[in-house]
């Protein structure tokens, strides 16, 4: 493991046998077990894993900040040779924020809401350097803001955190971390809360920092693609343990732990295809800390589990794969597994032929009034501002087809779902579904059949089910409401059928939502949506809150049910990888307008709308064989309250033409076969653009 002698350099950080526990009334809960890590100067290492694997706990332990109920119960954390566990509070204080700095997941929460950004930045030099005057601190803080490419640094210095956007806030946090020129930078999911095009800018900044300052970095993320873009080495964690460590290329291409392999099998890549090579989910679910099995924690979910070898009392020790590079793995059977033929042969499924048009949206408009229709407004008669949430949306969805609506926050995709479901009424245009215009048909006026034939899967698993009622009760209510089942006997039978359909045990009907995991809750949500056997289902980011391995299983289930029932699926998402994987047609939205639409193949290849092009470039892809063109958008997504006058994308467009783009919304041009691009740039020029994602010929490895 420890290969520092190879380079002869003293490691910045050396963690050995680290064990961290939380102490609750239920007893001691081990969060991290036997964690080892060595970080050399200038090196950046990624820690990846799903939620609850302990990756953030490791970062907090390095900071020696464990909260009131957490504690380091074993091992050592040596920073530049000194054990941090032994340091006094004052020693730690001097280290924190100066030699070791941290960047956090939610920049808004990480900044003090009632202090100006300047004040918060200036504290760093003022409290870490003797003889630093306020003037000097101010000057240096402002300089640093410019270094992290914040426009108008002097204005930002006097602003409060809520006055700048999320991306800008994260730049402020980064500036704060860099002000003392630290030798170690911890990044805890620094872009998770941000939109993908904003994320791309931050990632670029982080890469530049590591080059310019030579800072060692620990980058914590659940996103393999981000790790690939930012790190030299990777450590994969599972259930509180590191299970594999090695260089990025080793872990991504010749991984030797079944969990790592399983993780990659469940990530949708641009090369994946739902019909030819479906994702392979990891079965089962992450064990709770106090329910971890003996031996290998991954054992119960592993296809290569062997009793007597994997469930030994002592646990599984590290085994070196490559002594030179430091590639090591915590698996007892890695040498026995046939890695070349790891994946089971899955017979490819036939492509589905889309049928007749089921849903037709024409020139749909939805404007919101910002002011509530309260007494005050009624008395004063004051007209309020309008948000154009949806502007002239036009597209169709056919039987058996999956249509994805893609866009970042504020693009109006959720508003569209509300109008479709009858929770809001359209301002203009129509939605034809089952030969009825439902654009202005509120849900209260729809018949039970109409309602049952158009249902929705919601985003947040913790919110989708009512915590006060049993699962069976909630599905049963839907069945009665839609008139699918009349008496108790029928209800019970249908509930059982639906649970079978989503592959959950029938006695889950008696459970309450808090007794289910996130993935299970989403399955119930799917069962509920399919209760009325609807021809069309809308899924609003149904898997975005789930861990990758669970994501794959839920996505797979959704597609199976769709195939079985010939359902049309409207899939709302911000995740271009998932969209690429499961949809047939894609509608790209930005600030309430459709920028581009077409089949998946058309949208993911030139000609692109410049926004689609930037979006594709921004998505991190966890595949070493992919080359991406780098397009980083400047600025923020404009507020839907105050959108640009002409093309909504004009303020950030890298292919901005000038006055024309500011003055008028472009007409959609047909690139052939109904592939529509709404852009002022002539189609011939758009066709000349090179593809963003290029697959390199894959080298045969190991």
């Amino acid at each position, binding site marked *: 493991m420890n290969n520092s002698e190879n380079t002869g350099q003293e490691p910045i950080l050396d963690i050995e046998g680290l064990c961290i526990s939380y102490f609750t*009334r239920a007893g001691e809960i081990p969060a991290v077990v036997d964690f080892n890590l060595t970080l050399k100067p200038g090196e950046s290492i990624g820690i990846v894993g799903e939620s609850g694997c302990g990756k953030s706990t490791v970062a907090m332990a390095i900071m020696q900040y464990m909260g009131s109920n957490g504690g380091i119960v074993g091992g050592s954390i040596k920073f530049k040779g000194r054990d941090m566990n032994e340091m006094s509070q004052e020693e730690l204080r001097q280290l924190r924020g100066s030699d070791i700095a941290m960047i956090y997941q939610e920049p808004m929460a990480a900044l003090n809401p009632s202090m100006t950004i300047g004040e918060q930045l200036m504290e760093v030099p003022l409290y870490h350097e003797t003889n630093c005057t306020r003037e000097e601190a101010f000057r240096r803080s402002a300089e640093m803001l410019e270094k992290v490419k914040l426009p108008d640094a002097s204005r930002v210095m006097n602003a409060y955190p809520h006055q700048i956007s999320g991306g800008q806030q994260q730049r402020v946090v980064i500036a704060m971390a860099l002000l003392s020129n630290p030798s170690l930078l911890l990044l805890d999911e620094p872009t998770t809360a941000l939109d993908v095009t904003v994320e791309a800018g931050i990632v670029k900044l982080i890469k530049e920092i590591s080059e310019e300052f030579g800072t060692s970095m620990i980058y914590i993320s659940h996103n393999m693609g981000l790790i690939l873009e930012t790190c030299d080495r990777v450590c994969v964690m599972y259930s509180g343990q590191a299970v594999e460590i090695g260089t990025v290329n080793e872990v991504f291409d010749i991984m030797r732990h079944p969990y790592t392999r399983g993780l990659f099998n469940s990530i949708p890549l641009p090369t994946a295809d739902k019909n030819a090579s479906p994702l392979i989910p990891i079965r089962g679910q992450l064990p709770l800390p106090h329910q971890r099995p003996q031996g290998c924690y991954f054992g119960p979910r592993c296809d290569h589990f062997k009793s007597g070898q994997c469930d030994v009392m002592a646990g599984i020790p590290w085994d070196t794969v490559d002594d030179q590079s430091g590639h090591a793995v915590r698996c007892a059977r890695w040498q026995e597994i046939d890695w070349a033929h790891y994946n089971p042969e899955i017979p490819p499924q036939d492509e589905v032929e889309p049928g007749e048009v089921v849903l037709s949206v024409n020139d749909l408009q939805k404007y919101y009034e910002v002011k*509530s*229709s*309260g*007494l*005050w407004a*009624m008395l004063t008669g004051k007209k309020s501002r309008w948000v154009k949430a949806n502007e002239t949306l036009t597209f169709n969805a056919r039987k058996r087809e999956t249509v994805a609506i893609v866009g970042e926050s504020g693009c109006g995709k959720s508003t569209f779902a509300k109008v479709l*479901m*009858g*929770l809001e009424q359209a301002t203009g245009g129509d939605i034809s579904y089952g030969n009825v215009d439902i654009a202005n048909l509120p*849900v*209260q006026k*729809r018949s*039970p059949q109409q*309602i*049952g034939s158009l*249902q*929705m899967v*919601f*985003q*947040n698993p913790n*919110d*989708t*089910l*009512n*915590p*006060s*009622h*049993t699962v*069976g*009760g*909630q*599905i*049963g*209510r*839907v069945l*009665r*409401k*839609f008139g699918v089942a009349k008496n*108790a*006997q029928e*209800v*019970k039978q249908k*509930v*059982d059928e639906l649970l079978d359909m989503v592959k959950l*045990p*029938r*006695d889950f*009907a*008696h459970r309450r939502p808090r007794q289910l995991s996130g993935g299970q809750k989403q399955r119930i*949500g799917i069962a*509920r949506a399919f209760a009325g056997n609807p021809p069309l289902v809308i899924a609003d980011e149904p898997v975005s809150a789930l861990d990758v391995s669970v994501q794959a299983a839920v996505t797979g289930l959704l597609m199976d049910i769709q195939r079985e029932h010939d359902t049309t699926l409207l899939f709302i998402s911000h995740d271009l990888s998932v969209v690429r994987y499961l949809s047939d047609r894609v509608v790209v939205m930005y600030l309430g307008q459709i920028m581009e639409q077409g089949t998946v193949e058309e949208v993911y290849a030139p000609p692109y709308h410049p926004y689609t092009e930037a979006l594709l470039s921004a998505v991190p892809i966890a595949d070493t064989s992919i080359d991406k063109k780098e397009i980083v958008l400047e600025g923020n997504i404009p507020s839907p309250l105050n959108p640009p006058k002409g093309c909504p994308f004009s303020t950030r467009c890298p292919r901005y033409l000038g006055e024309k783009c500011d003055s008028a919304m472009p007409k959609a041009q047909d690139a052939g076969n109904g592939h529509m691009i709404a852009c002022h740039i002539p189609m011939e020029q758009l066709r000349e653009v090179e593809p963003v994602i290029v697959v390199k010929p894959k080298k045969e490895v190991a």
Partner: protein
Amino acid sequence: MTDTTNNDYVAKPTPMIIQILRGIALLRESPVGLLGGSIVAFFFLLAILAPIVAPYDPNLPILPFALPGTEGPNGEYFLLGTDHLGRDILSRVVWGGQRVLFYATLATISAYIVGIIMGLLAGYYRGWVDELISFVANVILSFPVMVLYVLIITQIGASGANIVFAVVFASSPGIMRIVRGLTLDLRTRDYVAAAQTRGESGLWIMLVEILPNARGPLIVDACLRMGYTTITIGALGFLGLGLPPPDPDWGGMITQTRSFAGAGFAHMTLVPALAVSLLVLGFNLLADGLREVSIRD
């Protein structure tokens, strides 16, 4: 799945009594809450068993100015002494407790019914419904509570029913605000959207989807409010605006006997004062314990 006892999955709210028992079971985790719960339970038990526990008729003059622990002419034993009219203080405190608890419970429950309805309507429908309800609540809440009580009771007269009315009038706006706030938060949940998209009525959504999920904070608040209502009923009695004599109520007992405290008969007034403080302490500790437990889970 061959033999399930429950064949019908239709959502049924759990019976209140089971919820209360569950809450008590949770209290094991909080010693403070358990202590509060025991105090409250003690007083409720005392109230229910008043005919058995109270040794004498609370309004029967026996021996005036008897100190605690003395005996009466016919072998009566006054554990807590008697008052200036010779009535047994223990009996009066026990019967007074029954009255206080009865009216406090009745008033709090009534106030909750009004407050919950108003709060659900305001929070769920928003717009002018909300502004109207909130404005009325603002007007009522702009009165200092005791001023409001004094004004109402002097207008409509002192009686049990009027006190209940006054409490409902004065405290349902506060309950309404809490319920409104919870509803505003809960109505944004996906399960509410799911109910809306399957065409549920507003009434169903408010009562079945939203209200059960607001119960945690409401139960805590109800405990605090029980304590506060107990204080209020006592205060009205103290000011001479309470339940009509001669039946005992704690506030009235304090005010009628406090002039004798300086003459060495402090027990007459101290006993009801301690009783009301202890009961309120019980409610407050119980609320605190419940809050602590509900935050943890």
